[in-house]
């Protein structure tokens, strides 16, 4: 126990504190240790690229969350109907989760590329005017990242909800049916409201995936076209290793850290409070 605590203490919390310290220095190509104040944060929030990254993060997080949860719930409800070959279907839906985001990103990059993928296929089939160029359109490229992200993660949300639905006692459903509730009402009024902890868990997991999302963007768009799909994590690595601005990069890392903390800490707090209440 003790060595593990020591290692985690140093390599996680130690480096968080180190990054915090560096974000208050004027470190350029290598870390420096003289304090410089909040200049890096001022610079960060004055940077167009960072603001674009934050905008993209908000768009991505909102859509990623909504679509993953909605699609996940629909799939879970369908699978919950005691259908044939449920095991096979469940595996198919969950399988994308086994891939790394790099693979997902690369595959979708080919599928969405107008000269290779869907658009070309439709044109070859004779739909001459078919266009689907979101990947190379700077206004729409961020939505292609949502598509790939949802494809990857919706199955996972499905698994969470399926487990949740299965844990509900049969008697409750039967009682509701005797009272004359149809299937829709059973799910909408009774089962889904009981899934509150599952919603909460999905929310926490999906939001922190989206704040940290880096590999998907690198594989799919590399932040392009132009800088239109830059996200905070990509901004952070580019700033540290391509722009030689270690201090500024540390400041952006701290902003991401605070965003994750804002999601995780209330979650941990509510979990701990529930445990104490027992």
């Amino acid at each position: 126990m003790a060595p593990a605590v020591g290692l985690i203490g140093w390599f996680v919390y130690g480096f968080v504190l180190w990054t915090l310290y560096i974000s208050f220095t004027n470190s350029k190509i290598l870390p420096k240790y003289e304090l410089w104040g909040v200049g890096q944060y001022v610079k960060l929030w004055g940077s167009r690229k960072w603001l674009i990254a934050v905008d993209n993060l908000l768009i991505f997080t909102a859509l990623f969350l909504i679509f993953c949860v909605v699609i996940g719930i629909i799939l879970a409800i369908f699978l919950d109907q005691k259908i044939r070959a449920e095991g096979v279907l469940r595996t198919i839906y969950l399988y994308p989760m086994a891939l790394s985001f790099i693979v997902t990103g690369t595959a979708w990059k080919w599928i969405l590329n107008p000269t290779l993928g869907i658009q070309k296929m439709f044109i070859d089939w004779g739909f001459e005017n078919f266009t689907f160029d979101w990947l190379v359109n700077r206004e729409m490229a961020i939505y292609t990242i949502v598509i790939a992200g949802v494809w990857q993660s919706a199955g996972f949300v499905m698994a969470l909800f399926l487990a949740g639905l299965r844990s509900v006692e049969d008697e409750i459903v039967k009682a509701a049916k005797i009272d004359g509730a149809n299937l829709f009402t059973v799910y909408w009024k009774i089962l889904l409201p009981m899934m509150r902890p599952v919603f909460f868990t999905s929310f926490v997991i999906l939001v922190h995936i989206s704040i940290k999302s880096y590999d998907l963007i690198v594989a799919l768009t590399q932040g392009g076209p132009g800088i239109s799909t830059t996200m905070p994590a990509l901004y952070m690595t580019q700033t540290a290793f391509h722009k030689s601005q270690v201090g500024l990069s540390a400041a952006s890392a701290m902003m991401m850290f605070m965003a994750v903390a804002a999601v995780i800490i209330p979650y941990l707090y509510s979990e701990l409070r529930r445990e104490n209440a027992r």
Partner: protein
Amino acid sequence: MKKMLIALIAFAFTSTSSFAGPKIEVLHWWTSGGEAAALKVLKDDFAANGGEWLDMPVTGGGGDAANVALKARIVAGDPPSASQIKGPTIQEYDQEGVVAPYNIDPIAQSEGWDGLLDPMIAAVHKCQNNSGPYCAAPVNIHRIDWMWANKAVFDSNGISVPTSWDELNAAAEKLQAAGIIPFAHGGQAWQDATVFEAVAMGIGGNNYYKNCYVDLKETCLRSETTVKVFDQMRKLQGFTDEGSPGRDWNVATGMVIEGKAGFQIMGDWAKGEFTAAGKVPGVDYYCAATPSNNGYLYNVDSFIFYKTSDPDKQEGQKLLAKLMMGKNFQKVFNLYKGSIPARLDVPMDEFDKCAKTSNSDIKTAGASGGLVPSFAHGMAQGNTMKAALQDVITEHFNSDMSSVDAANALADSVLDNM
């Protein structure tokens, strides 16, 4: 058995620790094909001179991974003896105090590097703000402002190599009308910037380029000329195909080789793709400078030599610097890499037509003030400013931003990062 093992281990240790002679540890990312073969020449030379070479190759990301590894080792206080660092970044590392004392300067003096290199390129390799002792050695000169064109495509459409940007636009329109993609381009930030700097030097002229992208003068960046440069970029964007965003440069080169596209604007590493496909310059493809007034955008790969207290390694650094600037390595390495020797006195007989053009053009450009450093490849500016320029250029190229807005955004981005 046990005794033998102990003896063997003891022998192994003594045999390494008793080694006294030049020793070098080199961090690099030359691991593929021609580069690895060229590096082997250097390693063999080094061994033939009694040195011991500790190789530290770090592949991935075109040097990104190597840079991360390098920084980690410097922060840990254990830098390698030499690594690939170029342009103004050499000065940045010097300012961090990890280069001095300048172990290779005596070699540079005794070998007379000042006389072998163009003065501008020599200055890049001198520490203490480009005027002190030598602390890095150049291995090659890449030219950036190249246009690679498919000769068959040009010939069958009655196009000759354009000598002005207007001619180039006319040629591209002709190709477009004939249903051929005129401009093979990979829409990645660094490629957009590569094209931009060739356009800037061509349309703005050499002095404009120096004022704007070397000296970063605000009035120059906001000027009418910058607007014209962005106008030309917009035209070029119209000549790309819609699969362009995100494409790798070598895929774009492949489009020219196969005749799917007319031309590409890219540094001379693109030649390697033509050579690998068995194409001959002047017969299958043209290598011509993009239109400019005797301009020459250079990009020099260099090795920097870090501070070390180990006398064996200091000897190793001296030997490596000497061999790196030697005629043999400069010739062999550049034959493989497609660039030209940094030393201007290497006989060019064995090089191809493109390299010969590059070698004679650099001398003309050097004499007429047209030799300018590439900012897209980190020769004119450090990483921070390079990215500041690149971000705006790529944003303009990939959106409908007006040229005036782009020129102002360029100036603002530079001022923000000053």
